[in-house]
């Protein structure tokens, strides 16, 4: 049964790739991408996209970790519930609305976009940092305390390493959403690959549409993949072993 299913799956995958290739050729995507005048423009948009994602994610990761960690400290722990509730309310606002709202306050341009992306990406990172650290087993913390570990050491050696899987999941969600939302940044004059996508949608120029949508998708998949690599680097083998059991 499963062997047959696997065969079907493989065949389907190959067929899909072939079809995609043919379609790309037909809609002129390949021609468009190799146009020496358009090509640098696409690169520029890609660069803009990466820039928006990179800067906003860097800021969000820093602040998100900080908030998450702070809310697990003894003195602030009682605010964790309230803060996280607000945060989760924040996350019900659609990304498009966040961009639009920021635009109406801060005006047009990439700085606004970065700020909006930054705000929107803090949420999952902070939430998962909090959840990850909170879920570290109290027995482990007790063991660490009982050995006389100072708090900062417990944070660095026990809490963060053991929360890393969850934190990375948050980072990954933030990154993927961020890359997707950046595709909307064109609307407020911040550029990025959304430029091509919207051109394509508005003018029904499939090659441009795909020239925008495919790199955006690949970028998101790449980000996802990057997180997998990151988790190999940052999550202790001991934890992965424990999970696989």
């Amino acid at each position, binding site marked *: 049964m499963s062997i047959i299913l696997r065969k079907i799956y493989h065949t389907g995958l190959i067929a899909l790739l072939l079809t995609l290739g043919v379609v790309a050729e037909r809609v002129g995507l390949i021609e468009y991408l190799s146009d020496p005048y358009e090509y640098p423009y696409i690169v520029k948009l890609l660069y803009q996209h990466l820039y928006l994602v990179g800067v906003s994610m860097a800021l969000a990761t820093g602040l998100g970790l900080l908030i998450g960690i702070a809310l697990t400290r003894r003195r602030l722990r009682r605010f964790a519930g309230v803060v996280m509730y607000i945060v989760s309310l924040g996350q019900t606002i659609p990304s498009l609305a966040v961009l639009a709202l920021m635009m109406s306050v801060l005006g047009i341009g990439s700085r606004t976009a970065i700020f909006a992306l930054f705000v929107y990406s803090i949420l999952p990172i902070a939430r998962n940092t909090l959840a990850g650290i909170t879920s570290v087993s109290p027995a482990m913390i007790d063991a660490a305390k009982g050995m006389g570990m100072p708090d900062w050491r417990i944070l660095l050696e026990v809490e963060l390493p053991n929360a890393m899987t969850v934190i990375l999941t948050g980072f990954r969600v933030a990154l993927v959403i961020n890359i997707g939302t950046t595709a909307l940044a064109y609307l407020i004059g911040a550029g990025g690959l959304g430029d091509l996508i919207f*051109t394509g949608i508005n*003018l029904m*120029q499939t090659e441009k549409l795909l020239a925008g949508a495919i790199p955006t998708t690949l970028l998101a998949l790449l980000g996802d993949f990057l997180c997998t690599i990151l988790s190999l680097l940052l999550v202790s083998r001991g934890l992965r072993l424990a999970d696989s059991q």
Partner: protein
Amino acid sequence: SPLIVGGKNYTEQYILAECAQILLEDAGIEAKTKTGVGSALARKSLVNAQFDLYFEYTGTAYTVYYEQDDQAVMTHPDKVYEWVKSHDADKNLVWLDPIQFNNTYTLMMREKQADALGITSISDFGAYVDDNPDELLFATDVEFWERPDGFKALMRTYDFRMPIDQIKKMSTGLTYKALREGQADVAMGFSTDGRIAAFGFVLLEDDKQFFPVYNPAPVVRKDVLEQYPEIRDILKPLAQKLDTNQMQQLNKAVDVDHKELKAVATQWLQDNGLIE
């Protein structure tokens, strides 16, 4: 099922769609609006029967859909209307009576800066850009940038080249805001937009007659018109009553005064005795 009155993604189109919908309903034809898409998509939607009717501009059809650039035709309202009407007839699309205003693309500047730089026409602008390529920022939407009657082609016609980094692309209606707030020095606009006057922008003269004439007209699929032949007469008053000035006023009422669309449309139709 109700008649779908389509519309593109800017205010004038919302108003026109709204007016048409009110008139149709008033005449007892159930109708509803569906707006917010780019030009090409609007057109495609009409062909694919996802719209039954929407207002298209003669120049747009001529240059974008038929990719024509005969100056003799496109700068002449009647000629271009007849041209697209007859060509579209082959595609089972019927152009009804055109409305008598020209909503052309235009380049706008803040009055002060235009005066300071001594720019009054697109030629001036082109020359200035060629001299100071890294100075002026230009705000446009993606559609105007790409279209055959858009900025790329315009630069060719006027023979200047603006560096890509000076072009700021954004959502269609934001160019006015960008220009007003100084995030752009020159912006694409629509000549009937109420914000041009309200924000004190000057329009650069199209001294090389680059833009065609853009008279809006309701375009209907033939099968729809056959089903509801009365549409032609229902929408006729729009063509007779709506002029450039009035359109600007309506646009202004929505964009600047933030009046509600339906209210604005209803008010105008009442004022002109088109509905009770």
